């Protein structure tokens, strides 16, 4: 049980996909302007990450590894993720049109969100099915945490008097780097907390 908790904490805090592994920066910068769209986007990412792992893990284990076709991982995983994102898009359009409109172009962009592909590939490289699922859910939650924190930072930025040459994306990137730096403070937390 401790191991699963450690995986979850690592994926959320010490090994945060956005702030420590620098994956999925595009939606991180693109959709973090408002809290509710940030939450909606992260929820979609959590869902897609979990689903993608659940589907790709058996494909990898029983189809690719058995036939010595590991080199197909990237293309097969992208195929699966793309199809899943399309499915999420169709379902969202039907049941949550406001969220669908708010996410706009960033929803199909989950397809090319390297965080999703990253978590899937890292999962099949090292781990068993249950661990993989925990890791992907944790990665999604970590993504959500980063998005929520950063949407707060950005709403503060809105009312700041920013020098002209830093206005817009430059100051956002600087803020992102500082938030990322603050996550380095979690180094060693999991080991210390759980006595590993």
């Amino acid at each position, binding site marked *: 049980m401790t191991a699963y908790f450690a995986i979850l904490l690592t994926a959320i805090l010490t090994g945060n996909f956005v702030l420590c592994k620098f994956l999925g920066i595009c939606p991180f910068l693109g959709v973090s302007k408002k809290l509710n769209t940030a939450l909606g986007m992260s929820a979609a990412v959590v869902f897609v990450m979990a689903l993608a792992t659940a589907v790709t893990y058996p494909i990898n284990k029983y189809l690719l590894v058995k036939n*010595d076709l590991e080199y197909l991982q990237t293309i*097969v995983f992208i195929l699966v993720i*793309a199809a899943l994102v399309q499915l999420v898009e169709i379902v969202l*359009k039907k049941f949550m049109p406001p969220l669908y409109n708010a996410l706009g172009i960033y929803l199909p962009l989950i397809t090319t969100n390297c965080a999703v592909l990253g978590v899937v590939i890292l999962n099949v490289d090292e781990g068993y099915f249950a661990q993989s699922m925990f890791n992907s859910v944790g990665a999604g939650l970590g993504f959500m945490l980063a998005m929520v924190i950063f949407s707060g930072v950005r709403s503060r930025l809105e009312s700041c*008097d920013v020098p002209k040459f830093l206005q817009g994306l430059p100051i956002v990137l600087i803020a992102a780097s500082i938030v990322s730096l603050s996550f380095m403070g979690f180094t060693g937390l999991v080991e210390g907390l759980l006595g590993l």
Partner: protein
Amino acid sequence: MNPILLAVLIVSVIGILAAVGLTVASKVFAVPVDEKAEEIRACLPGANCGACGFSGCDGYAAALSKGETKETTLCAPGGQDVAQQIGEITGLAVGNMTPVAAVVLCQGHNDNAVIKLEYQGVQSCRMAAQIFGGPKECIYGCLGYGDCVAACDYEAIHLCNGIARVDPHLCRACRKCVKTCPKGLIEMLPLEGTEAAVLCKNHDKGAVTRKECKAGCIGCMKCVKACPEEAITIDRFCAHVDYEKCVGCGACHEQCPVSAINLITLAKHA
């Protein structure tokens, strides 16, 4: 089996499975598209300003096509033309729109208003207003940090000697600035014809107002007595004109000792 063939087979099978799944899903979760709403949406300006009272242009178009509203004249930026087009699509009666434009009811520019403190905080009216009602002695007046300028989608508002001024020819009457102004100084005036307007919202007593701003309404009642149409009323030491009754004769302007009441002609005569 040939490993290349196997690889091709596996990828194709996964691709076909995904395609079939997506096709089924798109049929099961198909969303019916409201063609009438799309048509109405196409002729709306797309500013999503919310002046109509709905959540943007999509909301107004959907409400019209579903029959939730029968008002075709709610789109202020679109004006009469858009109302006409909506009427043609929906078959609803088209009412008449009185064209209006925003006006900032303050003359407290740098030469008129007295400054009480030096403000060095965030350059925003909303922020400045929280510190003793702003840096000007008059707590009712325009602060001149341009929250309305930022709110305007049409670049119709500019700062001019410390106060905001609206260009009526660029104003599309979306009322975003009206909602933004922390002092509630911006009002919509009829675009056609000439109206008298009190360019002051100061509700202090006359003697106090006099010390705060050279152009502040002191509530002396001279305009009330001068008006032949009885269009002017005084509310808490500040005059207000009923634009419905005003004929633009200018009698009030001649009487006003502080030039707070002015004749305004927004639309230039051709």
